[in-house]
């Protein structure tokens, strides 16, 4: 690639101050304050040096470094919320910066070589595009994962009492996360009670019930008693009609009832404040 671009372009690139300066200017206009001119200058300055090295000496290691640097920029732009075309356009702007210099000199050879150079820069720009998509996919996957975890928090309600408020559909993947988080918290806190609140679960069928039972059994093996709370009237009726038995698992209508039960069972006495 580098050999085809030609020496005139390399010569133009020699005037680093002018060409890089113009490139930075063009890109800074485009990013509209989301990153500072200094940051742009640092990023592009690195790319510029690598482009020069690759084009002038056909330097293989420079080519590799250039690709790595482009990926890095692309990744950080993706995380800053830039669109993929904005990132690619930043790279393409180098063409304009160089083209303006040729315009100033106005020579045939340079124009001919510019076409090859233009193709070269296009390739670099497209590379950022690919990295960008890969990064965005990763970001989205991370967010989905975080949502899963967010929807299944395990909180400390009291010394020795954990709360697990479940919201939404309790499928196998969710149950796995709940169970792991809960068991880890049990290890970390040595809690004696866990209140699993299902107020936010829209329907309890045999699958959900089985998952709940499994979680309760696993906690039991670690010496923790689980209380299930938040069983709304319509869910209670459905569970009974379905024939599901929760055996000797304590169930309470509300989270408050469950907490009161766990507090009493752990010997905590709540007294009305004297000032009230």
């Amino acid at each position, binding site marked *: 690639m580098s050999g085809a671009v030609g020496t005139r372009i390399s010569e133009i690139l020699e005037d680093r101050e002018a060409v890089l300066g113009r490139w930075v200017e063009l890109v800074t206009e485009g990013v509209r304050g989301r990153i500072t001119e200094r940051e742009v200058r640092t990023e592009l300055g690195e790319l510029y040096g690598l482009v020069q090295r690759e084009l002038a000496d056909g330097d293989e290691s420079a080519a590799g470094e250039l690709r790595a640097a482009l990926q890095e920029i692309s990744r950080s732009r993706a995380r800053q919320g830039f669109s993929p075309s904005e990132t690619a356009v930043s790279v393409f702007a180098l063409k304009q910066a160089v083209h303006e210099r040729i315009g100033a000199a106005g020579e045939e050879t340079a124009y001919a070589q510019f076409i090859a150079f233009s193709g070269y820069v296009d390739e670099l720009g497209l590379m950022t595009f690919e990295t960008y998509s890969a990064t965005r996919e990763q970001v989205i996957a991370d967010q989905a994962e975080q949502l899963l975890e967010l929807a299944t928090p395990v909180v400390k309600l009291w010394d020795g009492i954990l709360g697990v408020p479940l919201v939404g559909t309790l499928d196998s993947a969710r149950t796995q996360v709940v169970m792991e988080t809960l068991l880890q918290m049990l290890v970390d806190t040595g809690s004696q009670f866990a209140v699993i609140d299902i107020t936010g679960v829209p329907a309890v*069928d*045999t699958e959900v019930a089985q998952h709940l039972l499994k979680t309760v059994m696993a906690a039991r093996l670690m010496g923790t008693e689980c209380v299930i709370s938040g069983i709304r009237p*319509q869910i209670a009726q459905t569970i009974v009609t379905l*024939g599901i038995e929760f055996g000797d698992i304590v169930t309470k209508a509300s989270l408050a009832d469950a907490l009161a039960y766990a507090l009493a069972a752990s010997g905590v006495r709540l007294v009305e404040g004297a000032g009230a």
Partner: protein
Amino acid sequence: MTAPPQEPVPITSGDDVVRVRQAVRTAAAAAGLSLVDQTKIVTAASELARNTLVYGGGGHARVERVTDARGRAGVRIAFGDDGPGIPDIDLALTEGWTSGSGLGLGLTGARRLTDEFHLDTEVGGGTTVTVTKWAR
């Protein structure tokens, strides 16, 4: 008298079971079922959809709003699959019996949760389960 039938919902994954549940919830609310009855029909549908997926090897659900001769509104759901069928219906309808690793409560539970329950099955010829719940 029947509202225009909806497109059947394919059941090929766990996500589809959730989709069936949502379609049934919407139809049940639109038919004017009480919150308790909505929850019952949604739970029954959840059981039957999962059986279609797990034992029937996938299939589809047709959710429709229906009206009986006296003008009462309701929801009817037909689950169909081309799976292995059920060799012993009485056994399958025995509370607590499962050929897999379930609780064995799905079919009997679905029958009790609904007003009408029809099971059509043939070994090697697939299974169809139709349930209906009427508004009170």
